[in-house]
């Protein structure tokens, strides 16, 4: 059960973190 829990959160967390990172990269241009 614990392995499934970790796998599921990783499956949705990685794309979300990637999207947040890409957005922050763009957002930084606002303050440059």
């Amino acid at each position: 059960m614990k392995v499934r829990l970790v796998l599921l959160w990783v499956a949705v967390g990685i794309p979300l973190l990637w999207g947040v990172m890409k957005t922050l990269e763009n957002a930084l241009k606002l303050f440059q």
Partner: protein
Amino acid sequence: MASSFLDRENTVAPPGFNRFLVPPAALAVHLSIGQAYAFSTFNLPLTKLIGHSHSAPADWDLKQVGWIFSIAIVFLGSSAAVFGRWVERVGPRRSMFTAALCFSGGFIVSAFGIHLRQLWLLYLGYGVLGGCGLGIGYISPVSTLIKWFPDRPGMATGMAIMGFGGGALIAAPLSVMLMAHFKTAVSNGVLETLVTMGVIYFMFMMIGVYAVRVPAPDWKPAGWSAPSHPKQLVTTANVSVDMAWRTPQFWLLWVVLCMNVTAGIGVLGQASPMIQEIFSGRVTPAAAAGFVGLLSLFNMGGRIIWATTSDYIGRRNTYMVFFLLGILLYSTVPTLGHLGSIPLFVAAFCIILSMYGGGFATIPAYLRDIFGTYQVGAIHGRLLTAWSVAGVLGPVLVNYIRQYQIDNGVPKAQAYSVTMYIMCGLLLIGFLCNYAMRAVDEKYHYRGSTQS
């Protein structure tokens, strides 16, 4: 075989099931359908299908292409309202599966439309079919999450609805990357990108279909029991969907959501030109795109933060904060523009957009407090028609009033001031409706069995 896997009876969780497996299932669906917020990345490429680097005379124009998203949002609201009761009846797995078929199917039909150069197929594909996928997918996990987290309904639904805000953060760079990858001398890569995204999103949504479970009817979190003296405005009774929309509370909440969304959505759609015009010569288009990204980030973060906060301070108080703080910030924005302070201007809009997202994420728990858990998903579906109305009202208010001001000789940098004061008025209406909220009269309570 396939139908039995999708049946509600086969999704009942066994004893000892970890309820934290359900939020990622809901997130898988919401992160996918949240792509809708990033559909604008396809707008320009769709106007250059024949000319490739420029729009040829036979290409579609931006106005025609813009209708695809509008139709999708209208069908989001209407399908959530129409299919809400069906979603409650068949359970989250079958409804998530249907949403995946519709949403992904919308991409494939749209790609076919590009291949045949038939714009109506894009309206039908992404607009109608995809819009139904958006509506059904949006409400699918809501009542399930509320049942799994009776102790933290705001946090649970906030987590899922955060995904809808986060979906755009993934879809925007993903679409750009895929179009660049598929671009050739004879194609700008939109067709291939739509097919690829349709397949990716179908597979991703299947994670949710596979993982979602409903709790057994008598299930409660370990060590938790329903409070003997519930907080004010938190009911232990239930109201059916057909009765709910005859109550004044439903329409008060409808206006509350509509006003909160109208105030945010107009700004979100116009954010890039607005910051460039108010700080003319100081904000480049690239920096303005960064501003839009930052707003999306706060829109997403506000969903989980405000919805979780509402578990502690109450739903009505949370909306009081949205409306009062919103009025304060909107009325300050013109001054911040005159002062020329970009950081303060950006900070004000980041907070405004966090409350826009927070409004979406807190409403399911508010509905649960007022109408109970029975058919809360279906009631939520009907309430989402407020989103469809706000989706038209917000951009119209911002765009038309700005244009009217400019036509009457107001400098572009000051053309948004009146709009901001009108937004304050809308938020005041929302505040009054929220203030008027009372518990539902007993005559509307549902007396039958709620085990479904």
